[in-house]
């Protein structure tokens, strides 16, 4: 089996990967649909809770379909389109973030700069493979430029707070997200044009970790570590989730340039970064008194905000990217 896969061309391998992913998604969807049909009859409180759970599950499934489709489109149309797609995801995530972080009039110019200059520029730098510049562009240059623009607006009220919010939003939604397409362009020796696998590896591993953590936390509830921030975050299910992500990474070794041990290590690293990043974003949400980044109960998908789905990825991608670059000396 492994030999057969290795003998395929890169394109065929990636195609096979997508067939597998869409196949699994279809099976899960059909299973959930059939189960839903059976559930319909009674209306005691227990089945109501189940209905709610099923609804949440549908939301998750929808997101998975969407993400898989986005990846597929990105792969079919090439690296440039994939980079643009991730830029759009970053744009919408930043839009959600800024919407729920109150800004003042004086921030207007800085916001314009963030959305229409910093974001496109960062993704353009990614696309042109200037990895050194891409790493420092936001922390070094933008870090200075945005507060200057805000200061010129002549409004000192809550200046530090406002700027911190904007910087943080850019770090997560633009800087973090831009590291995902950057993986597409890494040049491993003997691993040309297979960056899509690396992206898939990262997303799959982090998503596995999050889902396992979520399901275990629900099934075997322990005392939450930080109940004010998250009712569901607990060490046991967190460790299990990270371990599951690591194992998933180890099993996916054959699609990466890593050896099994390396794949396991990289996967563990990405999972730790992603799940803890998710926790950090939860703390931000609690601070704002909201449960999701989508506008209160009115997001189109009914699945909360986009940022709720991609925040783990935003934290995992930079850690993963730089670890890989450092370890393999790329």
């Amino acid at each position, binding site marked *: 089996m492994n030999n057969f896969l290795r003998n395929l061309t890169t394109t065929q391998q990636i195609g096979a990967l997508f067939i597998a992913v869409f196949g699994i998604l279809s099976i899960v969807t059909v299973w959930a649909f059939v189960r839903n049909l059976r559930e319909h009859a009674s209306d005691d409180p227990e089945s109501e809770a189940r209905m709610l759970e099923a609804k949440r599950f549908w939301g998750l499934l929808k997101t998975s379909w969407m993400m898989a489709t986005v990846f597929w489109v990105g792969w079919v149309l090439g690296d440039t389109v994939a980079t643009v797609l991730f830029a759009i995801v970053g744009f919408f995530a930043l*839009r959600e973030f800024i*919407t729920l972080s109150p800004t003042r009039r004086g921030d*207007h110019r800085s916001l314009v700069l963030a959305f229409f200059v910093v974001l496109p520029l960062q993704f353009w730098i990614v696309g042109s493979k200037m990895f050194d510049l891409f790493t420092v562009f936001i922390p070094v240059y933008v870090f200075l430029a945005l507060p200057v623009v805000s200061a010129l607006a002549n409004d000192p009220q809550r200046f530090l707070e406002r700027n911190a919010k904007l910087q943080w939003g850019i770090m997560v939604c633009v800087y973090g997200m831009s590291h995902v397409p950057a993986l597409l362009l890494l040049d491993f020796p003997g691993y040309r044009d297979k960056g899509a696998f690396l992206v898939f590896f990262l997303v799959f591993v982090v998503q596995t970790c999050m889902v396992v953590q979520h399901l275990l936390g629900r099934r075997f509830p322990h005392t939450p570590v930080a109940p004010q921030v998250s009712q569901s975050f607990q060490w046991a299910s967190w460790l299990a989730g990270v371990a599951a992500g690591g194992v998933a990474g180890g099993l996916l070794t054959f699609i990466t340039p890593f050896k099994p041990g390396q794949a396991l290590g990289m996967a563990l690293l990405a999972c730790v970064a992603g799940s803890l990043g998710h926790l950090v974003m939860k703390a931000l949400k609690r601070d704002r008194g909201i449960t999701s980044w989508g*506008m209160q109960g009115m997001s189109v998908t009914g699945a909360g905000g986009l940022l709720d789905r991609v925040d783990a990825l935003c934290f995992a991608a930079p850690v993963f990217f730089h670890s890989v670059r450092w370890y393999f000396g790329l």
Partner: protein
Amino acid sequence: MLAKLMSFILLGIVRFLTGSQARWYGCPPKAEQRIYFANHQSHADMVLIWAALPEELRSITRPIAAKDYWTKTPFRQWITTAVFNAVYVDRQATPARPPAPAATEPVGVIGAMAAASADADTATAGGPDPSPDTPPRTPTPEELRAALPESDPLAPLVRALASGDSIVIFPEGTRGHGDEPQSFKSGLFKLAQMFPQVVLVPAWINNVQRVMPKGEVVPVPILCSVTFGEPIQLEAGEERRPFLDRARRAVIALREI
């Protein structure tokens, strides 16, 4: 053709920047004749509410545009007439006029009654001595409409409503600065009197002032929404001020939903 294309592009831009989400809480999006009244914080309010309405309602709903601002350049004028199908209103004239001179003056009402030919009511109450103080009855909507002078700032709205269109108005008159909307001007009350069959739908426009504050040119992407609430009605005998305050509270209440 050009207008169609423009409205398509504009819808795309507005959705890209703001999401322009409509939240129908108190009433469904229905093709009946309505007056939507909303808070006013930015010139973009009109664009947002236009974009938030579903396609079928958008074509029968006419927003109100401030004449001085929206006719300043040929492009603005074209976009308000061809794309938004807006009704122009003279902002300047509104505060200059005392509230409803025609509607409260007995002479005006009598004149209107004469104009409205032989009405059953007129025949019984009228007679040879029309002492203006004695009949305490309120004039009918038709009389009020007929009594409105052509120069009144409300006249274009009345024409639009009379032809069966829905309209969007901002009863504050000007854009507010604070968090709370300013107190409502009497236009809404007069329209409600003149068109009792038209449904009055309150709406709260959220966040638009952050997208494009006064004096800025480039909009910033921030999610906005329009919340439509439960319709209100002008109760029989309800005074102007209580009604306007009630309408304003209905709008503010939508902020918290």
